[in-house]
């Protein structure tokens, strides 16, 4: 498949100034390795979800892709252009802003509270040279209608506070879609939305995907990712620990972390707590554990895991993972007994 976006060995480190002297001298005492060597590709019309807990670096990854952060190292090839190296002005000049759109988590924070929402769509169209004047207005109305905000003339005039949370996120998506982007990066697009409305919001993105727009969704919810994505990448502490087709990752995980995420999904079918809970929280990106970075929380960890960082194993069919003791295929893995 022709890849639209290819990320190679991407690193985003945040400098930490531990002392006043280090700040004055501009010499960081340490780095938070938020994204620490990520490679990922997205094809045209493909939906890839990056799944992980908070602190896994997934939002940093999203921000680097849309050009809000300068990567420390690595490349982000978008349609042949290395966008990791572009200045903010070049992003606009090359028309990349229109082609890569961001949908943020909290629409109340990402829309201007003082401006009618229709105007916000219209100005995005005008700024990117998609349409101007009356035509831009007409297109903005269409965009509102497309995401189910009717009557569009009425919705056009509303300010974000006069809309519900779900409607606001529809506006944010309408603005992104109106520009007919090649790639939509959606950072937790439904985590602030009522559970009952989530599917209807994600369906809007799915509709765009079926017309050929690629979607990169950042989420902590592996169940949602499984339903909508072609592929899932599981991220832990700045690295992708497992990646593959949505079904293979969610139904037949190799990495114990993926398995833990899968079993933590509550189900109405069985009234039981997760069988294989992962204890504790993601360690700080300042002190990444040596060896396999998941070993302090892994129920299968051995002494080898503490010493050796697992290399990437690639299976037939393209699934890859980083684990020394991968779970057996077939989804028949059992949680180990402790103690």
């Amino acid at each position, binding site marked *: 498949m022709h890849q639209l976006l290819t990320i190679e060995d991407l690193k985003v480190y945040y400098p930490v100034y531990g002392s006043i002297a280090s700040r004055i001298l501009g010499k960081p005492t340490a780095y938070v390795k938020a994204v620490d060597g990520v490679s990922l590709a997205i094809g045209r019309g493909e939906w890839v979800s990056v799944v992980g807990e908070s602190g896994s670096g997934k939002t940093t990854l999203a*921000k680097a892709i*849309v*050009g*809000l952060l300068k990567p420390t190292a690595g490349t982000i090839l978008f349609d042949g252009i290395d966008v990791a190296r572009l200045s*903010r002005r070049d*992003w*606009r000049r090359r028309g990349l*802003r*229109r082609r*890569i*759109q*961001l949908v*943020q*988590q*909290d629409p*109340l*924070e*990402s*829309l*201007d*509270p*003082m*401006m009618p929402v229709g105007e916000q769509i219209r*100005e*995005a169209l005008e*700024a*990117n040279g998609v349409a101007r004047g009356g035509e831009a207005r007409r297109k903005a109305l269409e965009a509102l209608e497309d995401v189910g905000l009717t009557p569009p003339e009425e919705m056009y005039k509303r300010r974000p*506070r006069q809309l519900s949370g779900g409607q606001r996120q529809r506006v*944010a998506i309408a*603005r992104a879609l109106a*520009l007919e982007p090649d790639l939509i990066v959606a950072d937790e697009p439904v985590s602030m939305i009522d559970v009952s409305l989530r599917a209807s919001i994600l369906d809007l993105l799915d509709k765009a995907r079926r017309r050929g727009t690629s979607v990169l969704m950042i989420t902590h919810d592996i169940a949602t990712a499984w339903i909508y994505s072609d592929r899932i990448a599981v991220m832990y502490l700045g690295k992708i620990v497992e990646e593959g087709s949505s079904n293979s990752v969610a139904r037949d995980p190799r990495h114990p972390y993926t398995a833990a995420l899968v079993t933590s999904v509550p189900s109405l079918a069985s009234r039981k707590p997760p069988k294989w809970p992962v204890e504790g929280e993601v360690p700080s990106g300042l002190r990444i554990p040596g060896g396999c970075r998941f070993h302090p929380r892994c129920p299968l960890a051995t002494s080898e895991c503490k010493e050796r960082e697992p290399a990437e194993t690639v299976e037939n069919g393209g699934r890859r993972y980083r684990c020394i003791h991968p779970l057996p295929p077939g989804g028949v893995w059992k949680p180990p007994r402790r103690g």
Partner: protein
Amino acid sequence: MAKQAILARPGGLMVTAGLSIILFYVALAVLAPILAPYGPTEVSVPKELAGRPQPPSPEHPFGTNELGYDVLSRIVWGSRVVVQVVALSAVLSMAVGVPLGLVSGYYGGPVDRVLSLVMDSVYAFPGILLAIAVASVLGPSVGNAAISLMVVYVPTYFRMVRARVLELKARPLMESLWTAGLPDHWIILKHILPNVAPTILVVFGLASADAILTEAGLSFFGLVVVYPEADWGLDLYYGKNWLLSGAWWLTLFPGLAITSFAAGFALLGEGLARMMGEERWS
């Protein structure tokens, strides 16, 4: 949000009271020729009474001064000077302070550092001293007084606007505007300015209240107009000589005019701040 009666909202009473006071004095200034019972330098008492201040009486509710000028009329005429100086200085300070604050806060970098340093140094001066220093160099006139006040209040607008821009810049809104592909000047004019506007209004109220007091100080030292032109601060200066002789009306009434006008702006600023406090986004 539902439209509420202005009085029912927090700070609504303060805003209404402040605006009424301000409008009262503006009307006084505009309509001075109609409202003032006498001219500002008209000898309005019989010759035999001139030479000594005369206490308030039915014909002269605020009394007269030693030259026989009617104190009430001089307050009415004097409002023209204060209103002009304060309005002009507010426009000038805003015209300089707001754009600089927007640009400095938005772009940051070395320009921001230098501008902030300069503004902070000016801000560190006591306002009245700075205004007197500038005005004594420029010489007494309404225009020069406005320029002196501008020097004092530009940093106030600059600092408040810049701080608000920095606050906005840290919000996800800015990321969404950048990724929507809007050019910088567009973001500043169409998104940052409208979101900063309420802050500018609050600063306008509070800075103008302060400016009235500073203007009174300038005019007290004869740095705005020259006697016998009518001006509140100047009348205070000449009135103070008669305080020990018991002629309290020469200082009390101009003094009340100054403080009440300043209070009007202070009420407006404080009231607006309370109103915004409630409506600030989440």
